[in-house]
């Protein structure tokens, strides 16, 4: 691709943020972002560079997660809705705040497709680009996002309720 340097400047932060939110690990996210730009270097020009970058990053993340899940399966914390193939093991409670921990768990509880759609939308991709990145139809993105958001909010509130021992008014 032409002028990957410019792409780097323009999109790197967003890519790293997106990957960090997906993976819960910034170092990992940076590695994958690196890899994404390396691929851009080797790839021909595209019309929609941002969408392309996020698509590649998404695929890299998926592959990396699957690989890691296979390796760490025995360490994985199970939950009621274990979707083992597509989830990263919940990170230990390192998060700096309970909000972040609850957000992490709530996000991890989503289906992979819903989670990715939401994170891509948070990076400003339009429905068309999200659909392309995830291999879905454009018409289904609205529903996907609605479901993702609704479940995320519900899950988050459930987590925070738990943390406060159920004393929080719902």
């Amino acid at each position, binding site marked *: 691709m032409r002028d990957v*340097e410019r792409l780097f400047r323009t999109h790197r932060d967003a890519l790293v943020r997106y990957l960090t939110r997906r993976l819960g*690990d*910034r170092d990992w996210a940076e590695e994958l972002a690196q890899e994404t730009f390396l691929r851009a270097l080797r790839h021909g020009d595209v019309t929609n560079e941002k969408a392309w970058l996020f698509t590649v990053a998404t695929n890299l993340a998926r592959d990396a997660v699957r690989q890691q899940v296979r390796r760490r399966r025995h360490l994985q914390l199970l939950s009621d809705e274990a979707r083992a193939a597509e989830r990263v093991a919940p990170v230990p409670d390192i998060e700096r*705040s309970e909000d972040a921990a609850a957000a992490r768990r*709530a996000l991890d509880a989503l289906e992979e497709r819903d989670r990715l759609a939401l994170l891509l*939308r948070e990076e400003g991709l339009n429905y068309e680009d999200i659909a392309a990145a995830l291999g879905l139809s454009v*018409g289904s993105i609205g529903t996907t996002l609605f479901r993702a*958001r609704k479940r995320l909010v519900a899950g988050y509130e459930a987590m925070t309720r738990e943390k406060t021992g159920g004393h929080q008014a719902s």
Partner: protein
Amino acid sequence: MDIRHPDPGTIHAYVEGQLPFAEQQSMAAHLESCTRCVAAVAEARGFIAAASRIVGALDDVPAGVAPAREPGRATPGRRAWRVSRVTAAAAALLLVAGVSSLMIRAGDEEPGRSASPERPSMVAEELVHQPARSAADAAPARTAATTVAEAGTAAPEVRRERRAEAASPPEGIRFQAAAPPPAVAPPPAAPPPAAQPASPPHAGTAVADLSVAGRAGGEVAARTRSTAQPTAAPASALSLRSAERVPLRIMRYDAGNGVVVELREYVAALRDAAPRAAPAAPVVATEQALANQYRWTDPAGTRVYVLSGPFPIAELEELARRLAELPVVR
């Protein structure tokens, strides 16, 4: 689309402006007379906003969370991620500068080099200083003028384990320099800190792009700081009358207009000791009369960094963050 009561997916698409134009129009018309769907739109907006907030809350998490071998320390929430970002980056930056392989050209559009042309160029000079004292187990630096830096916003310590220790890839800068800084003859020590912005990069220096928003506090008088701080020599081997911490390394960055910010790296105290709770903390005899300081600890807990300059703490923090965002160089 069911024009009477569109499904929630369509409502979402409408709220986000993602419907084809004709559908957008007919939805708008529908909403003029359907309170149920108006409520659905309001609910959708609520979900969109709430979900966005929740996703944003994830960004409080520091890097290198997994796999962790020890629980992180409780630190003030909001700043933590920024601090953690800087830690490894600063460590790595110093490491790379020491390896004299960091050549980021400022402002040029050389192909294959990553740079930030929008940012004014900065010249960094590295002074590699071998600690003259038993820095290994002394407390990190404190200066007389740290009050502002410690006013709540500075340097919450971030402690966390990393998979790879010294060579962990830092944010924004990628390299695998596991080697310690080479025995490169350090550039002449202590040039005037109101430095020459135009000095060309050469081996051993790093030219980095940083944007400081031009808010140079103005008159930072040339701080002549010598890195070697000879202390009053003990009168005899039996009595040490004073101790002084000297930095392991100092990086100076020209922020333009003769303003300099300085990044000092110190060896930290024992890994699990809070940096400020060191016994008999030695005092660093450097003065930063006109400067604030922003201090942090690297994730491994082995290094303390102090970034000082004539900027408000928040800007120093931002600078520290930008230091971490120097583009990739292999």
